[in-house]
């Protein structure tokens, strides 16, 4: 019964996310205005004409939020895919091969974890110049360490399971054991970690945008909408409220789904 209730929450969160994804995917269909149209009255409060009001350019905040969902969600998704991919490969390699390879990779992980990562992100962002793709890559490349550690630990534990021994007995080759037996059994916890990582990536994107290094205008992401709103906190609180709440809601839903998944897998 308890479990059911919890899962219901996760299911609800998942539906919210799905809805957002649909809106993002079909943004032109949902957005009433061109998100770049600066012709309207600036800083107009929410009304029937502009559900979320207009921003300092007179652009429709609702339309921008809809298009922003595209950017924010895809930044989160791609960034996390990169970090999971890198972490996964390095984790598998070090877990499976062990020895020198493992210690080299794990020392590298230690080094990466010893950084105040914000400096690394700032510096790399400065090298690459800010744009949406680089934001994805940078967030991805500075957040893979947790996954690598997790995967390595999982590989080490899966390696000890009887079915791996059984696979050896029937004569399965090394690569076969790696790809058919170890990999599929490591993926589940990685999915959970990836889900939670996506929440982190969305937050990081918004923080980067806050520092002016995130997604650049005229593209809108929730992060840079928040940044634009800084100056108008008091004149147009809706400009800050809407993207702030959207980030909060999205991240919250992702956490809830992640938690649901964790319980599902943990049984």
């Amino acid at each position: 019964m308890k479990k059911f209730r919890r899962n219901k929450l996760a299911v609800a969160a998942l539906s919210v996310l799905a809805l957002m994804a649909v809106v993002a995917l079909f943004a032109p269909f949902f957005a009433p205005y061109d998100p770049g149209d600066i012709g309207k009255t600036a800083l107009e409060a929410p009304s029937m004409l502009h559900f979320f009001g207009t921003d300092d350019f007179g652009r429709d905040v609702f339309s921008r939020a809809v298009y922003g969902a595209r950017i924010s969600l895809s930044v989160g998704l791609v960034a996390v895919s990169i970090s999971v991919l890198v972490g996964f490969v390095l984790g598998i390699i070090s877990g499976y091969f062990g020895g020198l390879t493992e210690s080299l990779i794990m020392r590298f992980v230690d080094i990466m974890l010893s950084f105040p990562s914000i400096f690394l992100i700032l510096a790399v962002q400065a090298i690459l110049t800010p744009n949406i793709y680089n934001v994805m890559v940078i967030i991805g490349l500075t957040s893979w360490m947790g996954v690598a550690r997790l995967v390595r630990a999982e590989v080490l534990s899966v390696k000890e399971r009887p079915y791996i021994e059984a696979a050896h007995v029937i004569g399965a080759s090394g690569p076969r054991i790696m790809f058919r037996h170890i990999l599929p059994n490591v993926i589940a916890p990685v999915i959970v970690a990836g889900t939670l990582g996506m929440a982190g990536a969305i937050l990081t994107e918004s923080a980067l945008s806050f520092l002016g290094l995130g997604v650049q205008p005229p593209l809108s992401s929730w992060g840079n909408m928040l940044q634009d709103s800084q100056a108008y906190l008091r004149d147009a609180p809706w400009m800050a409220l809407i993207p702030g709440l959207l980030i909060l809601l999205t991240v919250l839903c992702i956490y809830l789904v992640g938690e649901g998944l964790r319980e599902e897998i943990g049984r």
Partner: protein
Amino acid sequence: MYKHVLKRLVSIIPLLIGVSIISFFVMHLAPGDPTALFVDPSVSPHELARIRSNWGLDHPVHVQYFFWLKNVLRGDLGTAYIINRPVTELIAERIPATLLLMATSLFFILLVSIPLGVLSAYKKGRGLDNIISVLSFLGMSIPSFWLALMLMLLFSVKLGFLPSSGMSDPLLADTSLPGKLADIVRHMVLPVLTMVIIGFAGLTRYIRSGTIEVLGQNYIKAARAKGLSERTVLFKHALRNSLLPVITILGMTIPDLFAGAFIIETIFAWPGMGRLGIGAVFSRNYPLIMGIVFISSLLIILGNLAADVLYSVADPRIRTEGKD
């Protein structure tokens, strides 16, 4: 034990070298250079080239690195550009503010998350647990700078009873020591509050799951069977053991605290190291950046080491064996 600590201490060295190499080269790969700050219509490029060479920037990067490393081994982090002061001095000036902010926040984070985590575990699945869980998920989901701005808006602007920025009020410079301290405390409320709201959530979740696990273990059942009160079971037996992994988690939280403090410092104009560092990145003040990265990494690594040592000192097996 001491051997273990010594071994870990030695292992810090390659870590630090790795950190410094990566940050040094990443920073120098970034386009732009510190002299760019000087540009206005009246400064000629020849002057900039002259200053670059005064700063040693015309050497190849690896030569610059070894030069830097040599000085570090002598305990000298170099002289910051433009400001022209020793990096160690600049950091020493700023680090107390950052540490004060971090330590206070950490204290309150622990103060909040330990009871919440334990209660949540104890009432697992019931109303209170759900409330605490939702609260902590909310805490994890709020963008920190957004929260900071909202708090500033509420407490400084609307209600007007807390200062919005800085660490002390210059107009109170002549007051007595207690007055000054009270002033600093007032300035700390908002930044600390922000950091606690952002930071308590993760820890609460960890403590919750740790306690749930401990509560399911045999010696707790035994303690209950012995007829000890729930409170004793919960806080004496369960808590003690569920907190041990928290030590490790705390070690791992330090980088997050740093990152958090850096953004918070920028918003609340807190005169700490993070603000200094972010400014240094933008102005490509290499010696200063290197110094700050180096010192922060050192603190992070030492924090982890301390957590590690503490953990092995308080090894749960030793305790439970003694107990049951």
